[in-house]
């Protein structure tokens, strides 16, 4: 499958970057640009397998040290068994300088595939890029091309997006639109970020059997947990955790599990492997309903969560518990890139046994991180319980005095004030009135809450600059529920920079036959666009929709553009 080949090459590139970067500084975030472009070279009838060319181009500050011949040889060795054709524009050292002063390289992969298979491959590659981009926030991943006459383009890793540094050279994008759709939130203004809590790394012991298979060295697992969306701005708003997503990353910050791959890790079928849900009066059930067509970052493991304590009010907001598990080797990089790449696969093969062997350690580390992440949620739940428990006591007490009074004028006045005809209705209205006052408090009068206007391009930049060094316990950034429009407001200037960075990469290969110009560059492609980009928004939405429809329709059909 082409998707697998493309992703393995991308892994190889990132491992190379990480190795080169680690020689300078283990803690620095990777920087660079990576492009994946897919084009149909000879358009034919849809039913026949078509010939597609995938171009992978990358530009990074460490590129200058790359020896193309060796690099290509390494890639050829890791793709043994691959049926497609792998080419390099020139066997000689080919390192062009783009406007940004970065060296760049290009690899082409040619395959014959049926359109539905290719569409599925596109979704897999897109998801892989998205997953990788959230832990390599300074790397820009461009994915685009032309398939069956339809152009598509997407960029992951928007400039100035808020990020936190987690581990050595690994970061985490904290804009919540990567993990949750805006429509999933309440109607009110919310914090637009997640606030991950980094747990302590634990040293995993490698069973002898695995060590004998070549898995040597010190393996660590570091958890990070966060709730999405953040409710710090509305501490009185009732919320319930409705799902838990687990993201697994291996060395060099690469997704451990290939998108759409059959899940090799059976440990997570045990709901209680990672976390004691009962501690928070929750129950978990595996959720296998994850669609590649989703524009969000898809988890490796997903659970449905429900509370077994009580039913939640109808207006409770839903939150998702995000858990990031970073597995890495403590020692330095192996001398050979191919060896480092091979370790990734070897790790995944044996990770199940290793996780089983170290369950208590893993659970302890995860529990600590999750406890901290849920601390505020837990306090909020307790506060809500206190408020709700007080209402029936207050209502009965008031009713006792009113009903027991011998002064008819007092009784009549109280009933009349709440427009009740009898004490039964009076009780009901008292209860409703108390609930209403609590609800009003949790909704927060907009006049009282002086939230800043949606960030302008300048503010966004400033915020982005600060966020590169943001502490893990960073403060909330109040703002409207994240809509792609807002995150793209700053792109008016950014778009030109985008175009500039595109051109050198594209110029090394075939230019796309059709172009929609310097289109929007948000990673969240659905639903955004200000008045000035509305025409482009519509076109873009159609194209994204067409991609999904194409996949569903199968061969022989063509969605209406």
């Amino acid at each position, binding site marked *: 499958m082409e998707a697998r080949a493309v992703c393995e090459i991308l892994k190889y590139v990132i491992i190379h970057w990480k190795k080169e970067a680690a020689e300078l500084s283990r803690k620095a975030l990777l920087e660079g640009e990576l492009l994946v472009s897919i084009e149909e070279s000879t358009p034919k009838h849809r039913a026949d397998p078509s010939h597609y060319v995938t171009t992978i181009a990358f530009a990074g500050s460490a590129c200058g040290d790359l020896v193309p011949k060796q690099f290509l040889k390494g890639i050829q060795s890791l793709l043994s068994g691959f049926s497609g054709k792998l080419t390099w524009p020139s066997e000689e050292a080919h390192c062009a300088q783009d406007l940004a002063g970065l060296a760049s390289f290009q690899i082409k992969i040619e395959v014959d595939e049926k359109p539905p298979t290719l569409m599925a491959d596109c979704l897999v590659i897109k998801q892989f890029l998205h997953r990788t981009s959230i832990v390599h926030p300074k790397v820009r991943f461009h994915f685009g091309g032309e398939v069956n006459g339809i152009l598509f383009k997407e960029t992951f890793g928007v400039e100035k997006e808020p990020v936190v540094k987690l581990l050595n050279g690994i970061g985490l994008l904290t804009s919540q639109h990567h993990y949750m759709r805006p429509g999933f939130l309440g109607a009110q203004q919310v914090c637009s970020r997640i606030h991950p809590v980094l747990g302590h790394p634990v040293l995993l012991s490698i069973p002898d059997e695995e060590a004998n298979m070549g898995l040597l060295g010190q393996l660590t697992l570091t958890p990070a947990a966060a709730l999405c969306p953040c409710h710090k701005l509305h501490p009185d708003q009732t919320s319930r955790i409705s799902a838990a997503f687990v993201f697994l990353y291996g060395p060099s910050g690469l997704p451990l599990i290939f998108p759409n791959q059959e899940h090799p890790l059976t440990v997570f079928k045990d709901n209680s492997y990672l976390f004691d849900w009962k501690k928070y009066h929750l129950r978990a059930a595996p959720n296998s309903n994850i669609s590649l067509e989703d524009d969000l970052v898809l988890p490796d493991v997903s659970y449905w969560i429900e509370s077994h304590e009580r039913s939640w009010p109808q207006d409770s907001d839903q939150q998702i518990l995000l858990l990031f598990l970073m597995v890495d080797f403590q020692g330095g990089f192996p001398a050979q890139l191919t060896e480092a790449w091979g370790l990734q696969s070897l790790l995944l093969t044996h990770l199940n046994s290793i996780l089983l062997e170290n369950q208590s350690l893993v659970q302890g580390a995860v529990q600590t991180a999750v406890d901290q992440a849920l601390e505020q949620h837990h306090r909020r739940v307790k506060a809500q319980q206190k408020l709700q428990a007080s209402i029936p*006591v207050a209502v009965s007490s008031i009713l006792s005095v009113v009903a*027991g009074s*011998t002064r008819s004028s007092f009784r009549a006045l109280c009933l009349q004030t709440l427009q009740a005809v009898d004490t039964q209705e009076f009780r009901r209205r008292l209860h409703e009135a108390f609930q209403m006052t609590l609800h009003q408090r949790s909704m927060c009068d907009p006049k009282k809450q002086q939230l800043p206007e949606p960030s302008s391009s300048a503010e966004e930049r400033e915020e982005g600059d600060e966020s590169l060094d943001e502490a893990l316990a960073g403060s909330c950034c109040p703002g409207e529920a994240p809509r792609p429009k807002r995150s793209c407001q700053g792109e008016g200037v950014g778009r030109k920079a985008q175009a500039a960075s595109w051109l050198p990469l594209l110029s090394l290969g075939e230019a796309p036959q059709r172009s929609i110009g310097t289109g929007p560059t948000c990673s969240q492609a659905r639903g955004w666009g200000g008045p000035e980009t509305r025409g482009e928004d519509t076109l873009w939405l159609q194209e994204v929709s067409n991609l999904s429809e194409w996949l569903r329709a199968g061969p022989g059909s063509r969605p209406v553009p």
Partner: protein
Amino acid sequence: MAFALMGPEASFFRVLDQHRVSLIQSLKEGPGEAPRKEASSSEVLVSIENIIQDIVTSLARNEAPFLTLDNRSNWENIKFEDSVGLQMIPHCSTKKIKSDSAQSAQRFALILKILSMIYKLVQSNTYATKRDIYYTDIQLFGNQSVVDNIINDISCMLKVPRRYLHILSTSKGLIAGNLSYIEEDGTKVNCTCSTAVAVPSNIQGIRNLATDAKFLLIVEKDATFQRLLDDNFCNKLSPCIIITAMSFEAHNLTVPTIRWLGLLPSDIERLNIPKDTLIPLTKRDQMKLDSILKRPYVTCQPFWKKEMEIMAELKMKAEIQALTFISSDYLSRVYLPNKLQFGGWI
């Protein structure tokens, strides 16, 4: 009514009699504050109904109701009156108990709960102790002190003594000496018996109170009270009354004023109390002492301030039992008679 004929000479009580005269005089010439109003049951019921009505009105306006209480925990709001003792100042600072705050919602509900119980008690002219209130729903209230605090808050809020709320203290006090009365059920009580009498919970029903006592001695510890009984103190210094502290609440005085007899910090050096009987002040004692010294009403009481400064300097305290190290009956034979005869109180 015949009382015990034993007792010292009349001249023994000269200082005490002078003290009583001055107290009565100061009452007459007082600052002009209106005496505490005696509230009728219907007035208490109307006060509670007014509170409920205000809450219902707030709810009808979609406003979260709240209760306003005098801030009893701020010493700036407390003053000391010779004729009364500790009391809230006029226009003291207040605190809001909100119904829509997680911190105070529970307290708001519990205040309403106890208000409704008081309403029923007053309406039916029945009584309950603070303990009874707590035991109506121990899970709801949590602990006795929560109930006690809320009852005190309600007493302040309605500006009536607790007895008008038909809530009694859970008395474990004892009384002995020159006193007789008839209880509500008609029982005649004479406290001059050799054994002490339990203080009744419902003092509202007491009538025909008769006494010739020159003084009422409040004894902190039951053991010391028993020692005085054993030493026949009530007869030796007759006519007098002795009572344990458990039956006596400082904020609900039934005597015009109170004086501190001992063991004073200044007594420690004056009487040469053995040093090995003294107890070092704990950190908590020290903090309490510092806090009391800063209270506004203390700054107006030079004798109290002086004694506390002596204690702070000594960094030691002494229990009344320390006097037994001088001799077993030193308290009843020497210490108390001398203090009472020569006005050794502050």
